[in-house]
C-alpha cells in the first residue's frame, strides 16, 4: 500500500528525469469547465482523461487546469485548448474518449478536431 514515504522516491526519480523533459508544449493549456453544470454533465472524468493522456504522451509542458461556467451549460462538459498555433479553441460535449483524441490530434498533431468544436455544434 502507498505511504507518504513513497513521495521521496518519486521526487528523486523526477529530478533524474529533468533533463529529458520535452518543454516544447510550454505554452499549451487545457482548461476544463468545472462549475456545477460541468460536473453534473461529466467533467471530472474528462479532466482525468486529459491529465492521463498528457502524462501518457509525456507532454510535460502542457498544463491541465479547471475553469468556471462560461454560460453554455447545455454544451458541457466544455474544454478550452490554447496552443501557440491555433490560439483558443473551445470543444463542447466532451467525453474521456474525445479528450484523448484532442490531445493526440490537436495538441500533438497540430490539427484542430473540428467535429467537436463549438462552431460545429451550434
Amino acid at each position, binding site marked *: *500500500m502507498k505511504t507518504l514515504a513513497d513521495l521521496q522516491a518519486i521526487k528523486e526519480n523526477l529530478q533524474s528525469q529533468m533533463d529529458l523533459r520535452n518543454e516544447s508544449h510550454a505554452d499549451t493549456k487545457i482548461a476544463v469547465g468545472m462549475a456545477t453544470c460541468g460536473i453534473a454533465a461529466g467533467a471530472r472524468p474528462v479532466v482525468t482523461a486529459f491529465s492521463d493522456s498528457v502524462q501518457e504522451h509525456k507532454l510535460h509542458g502542457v498544463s491541465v487546469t479547471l475553469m468556471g461556467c462560461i454560460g453554455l451549460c447545455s454544451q458541457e462538459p466544455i474544454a478550452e485548448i490554447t496552443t501557440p498555433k491555433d490560439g483558443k479553441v473551445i470543444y463542447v460535449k466532451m467525453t474521456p474518449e474525445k479528450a484523448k483524441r484532442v490531445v493526440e490530434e490537436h495538441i500533438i498533431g497540430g490539427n484542430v478536431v473540428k467535429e467537436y468544436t463549438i462552431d460545429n455544434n451550434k
Partner: protein
Amino acid sequence: MKFEELSLNILDVALNSVRAGALLIEISVTASTESNRLVIEIKDNGVGFDVNRYEKETAERLCRDSAQEKSGGNGLRLFKESAEKTGGSFELVSEKGSGTYVKAEYILNSPIRAPLGDMAETFAALTLCEGDRDIVYTCNADAKGFSLNTAQIKELYGDAPWKNYEIIKFIKEFIKENTDNINKNRFF
C-alpha cells in the same frame, strides 16, 4: 440536475472554496456503523459569504445559462438535498471574512444514499486548480482511517514545483488504496 456520487458534491463545494480564495480546504468523510451516519464536512478559510443571500448569488455565479438555472445550478442546494432525502441533515455556516463550513449528514445504510464514489479523482481534480492552497482530506470508518495533506507533499518538495503528473498519480493511488483498505465495501 443531480450528482451520481457524493464525491462530485464534494468537488463542487470545494471548488466554491477555491473561488472564495481559501488557502486551506479541509475535507473529512466519517462513517460510523454505531450511529449509522456518514458525515461529510468541508471547511475553508476563504472570504465567506452572506448565507441569507447565497441562493441568489451562487445561482448567478455558478451558472449563467438561464435554461439550466431552472433545473438546478446550485451546488449547495444539491448537496443539501442529497443528505436530507436520506433522512439526514445539512448545516451551512459562513460569514464574510471568516470562511465557510458545510456539513452534510447521511443515514449510512439508507438505500437512497448516493455512494461516496471516487474521492481520488476529486482530490486530483482539486490539485489541478490554479493558485496555491493546501487541501487536507481525512477519511474515517469506525476505528480505521487515513489522512492526506498537500502541505506534507510541499514540505518534501521545498521550492520545487510539486504539481506534476507523477505526484497526482501518487495521490490517486494513495487515496484509492487507503480507502479500499478501510472500506472493504462496507461503508461508502
